[in-house]
């Protein structure tokens, strides 16, 4: 199961100061993410799932601990270097889709390429749009799409740079079950066919079941970690 370790976190801590109180959002988490595996992070609200996702995606810096992406230590790196790492390695999908309302589907999907300074090749853009089932909606604006279609755009936007890791924070949270399943299929397709690593958070246990590994957080700590073989061995 899985290939090379792409993201490796050791003793990851993220503390926030709320008045005089120190909130330990994440407190000593060890985690490895390998290529070609789907990792689901489970946990109740406030358990630190999003905080961990933000650290793994180099959007935030750990208060303590070490984090390496592609073998390179990234904790303590300045923002401009983190950007370089993010834009070449990581694709991010959010629960709220967060599309740019004035850009068409195709332009939203191609947005990361603008920041990479690349002109979108029509072929690769068409391939991504086709893979997320939006080939016939490329000139539509987000307001003309359903929730599921908007999330497909967000996935296309994450895939356009051919990321090594897809990071999704409750990507099906705003979708009905059937649409959520379809969207999740798209994620797994990227994992199985392109060897992309997937890290996602969800409250949907059915989706978690379909991942290779689940990591359960509570109060900022890993309380359980289950691999697919362990899941298979568990009595149903």
């Amino acid at each position: 199961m899985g290939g090379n370790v792409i993201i490796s976190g050791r003793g990851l801590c993220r503390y926030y100061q709320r008045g005089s109180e120190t909130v330990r959002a994440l407190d000593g988490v060890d985690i490895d993410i390998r290529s070609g595996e789907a990792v689901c992070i489970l946990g109740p609200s406030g358990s630190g799932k999003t905080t961990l996702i933000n650290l793994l995606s180099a959007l935030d810096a750990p208060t303590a601990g070490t984090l390496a992406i592609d073998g390179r230590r990234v904790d303590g790196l300045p923002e401009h270097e983190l950007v370089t790492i993010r834009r070449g390695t990581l694709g991010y999908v959010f629960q709220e889709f967060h599309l740019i309302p004035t850009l068409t589907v195709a332009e939203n999907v191609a947005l990361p390429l603008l920041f990479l300074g690349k002109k979108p090749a029509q072929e690769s853009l068409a391939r991504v749009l086709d893979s997320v089932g939006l080939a016939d909606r490329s000139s539509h604006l987000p307001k003309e799409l359903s929730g599921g279609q908007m999330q497909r755009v967000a996935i296309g936007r994450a895939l356009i740079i051919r990321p090594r890791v897809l990071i999704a924070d409750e990507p099906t949270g705003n979708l009905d079950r059937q649409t959520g399943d379809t969207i999740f299929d798209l994620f797994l397709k990227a994992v199985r066919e392109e060897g992309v690593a997937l890290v996602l958070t969800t409250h949907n246990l059915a989706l978690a079941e379909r991942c290779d590994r689940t990591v359960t957080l509570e109060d900022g700590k890993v309380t359980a970690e289950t691999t697919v073989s362990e899941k298979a061995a568990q009595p149903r």
Partner: protein
Amino acid sequence: MTFTAFAWKNLTRRPVRTMLTAGGVALAVAVAVSLGGFNLGYKRAIAGSIGQLGFQVMVMAKGCPYEAATMMLKGGTGLLYLPEDAHTKIKNDPDIAAITPIFIGIAEKQGSSISDTPSASSFTILSGVDEASFRVMKPWLAFKKGQGYEGGRWFAPDSTNEVVMGFEAAEYEQRKVGDVFYASVTPNGKTEPEMHTFKVSGVLERSGSQDDGTVFLPLKTAQKVFGREGQLTIIGIKLREFNGIRMREFEGRWMGIPEVQVVSLEQVKGALVSLVGTAQTMVAAVAVIAIIVAVIGVINAILMSVYERIGEIGIMKAVGAARNQIFRLIWTETLLICLGGAVAGCLLAVVTAGTTDAALRHLLNIGVTQGLVRITPGLLGTAVLGSVILGLLAGIWPARRAAGLHPVEAIRSIG
């Protein structure tokens, strides 16, 4: 898609706000361009109008020389007169290249004007001239040709019932060669006006000077009609060599004549330029205020736009946007607003140049005939460039705010 296209699409999200902000810039630019055009135009206009008087020196009755000069330029009432023998004394001065005596009077246009609208001018400037010396002073004056204007000529020197009409005076009165011209004049010392009838002996071509609105008649006839025999309004003089030294020498020789003063039109020009310069400073202050308000408007609009899009900016950072790219995007938006506003402002200034000219002319009342506002391509280019620079400066703060946002905090703000 390019950054510019992306920035443009962002601006179209709130079209009313974008239009209003660009409109503020456009107004400021229009004011600045009009002011710049005024700055370029008024000195030339004053110099041109004074140049078209045809002489460099005026001898006139003592009083405010600038008021008299303005009167010469645009006509008016309250003229002062000097004795005609001053002309006899001065005309043989060795420094004089040409000299012409002029009598100016104001006639009411009762029974002659075809327009009864309140806005129509109710008086005509009658200028009594010595035709021979006047033509030497203004060799460019020519008679209008074409149907109805055949045989146009100057009046005979001793004629008592002939006039030559300036282009605009004839147009306004719809008079052609051979037509009758009526003038109602209240002679000096009398209270009741007298009606005089003249025949139009010629209509002048447009000269672009105050002569266009003047009706010319023989000097002696004009003096008699106004009951001021032996009096002149001014004596126009062209010196053989005109410079400060010659002017002072000439002035020194003739300032001894009682009730007479010698005025250089260079002095008049300087005084008028200085007078207009004061008004210009006030207009410049208004322009500066307009520009400051526009810049504040741009900063405010872009800042609001940034605050509304904090979440989006966070997303852009998450998908790979660097600080400098966010900065560039916001800066481009500011630049587009300022550029659009500048172009619109330049167009507005060009389109309204005539109205601005008329308004300034009315406000300043200096009586020059040439355009006061001169808008050149260089001026427009400077205005656009200035707007771009101001836009770039105005965009720095909002762009820095946007670029400095922490991605996680920005995304979290979406709620």
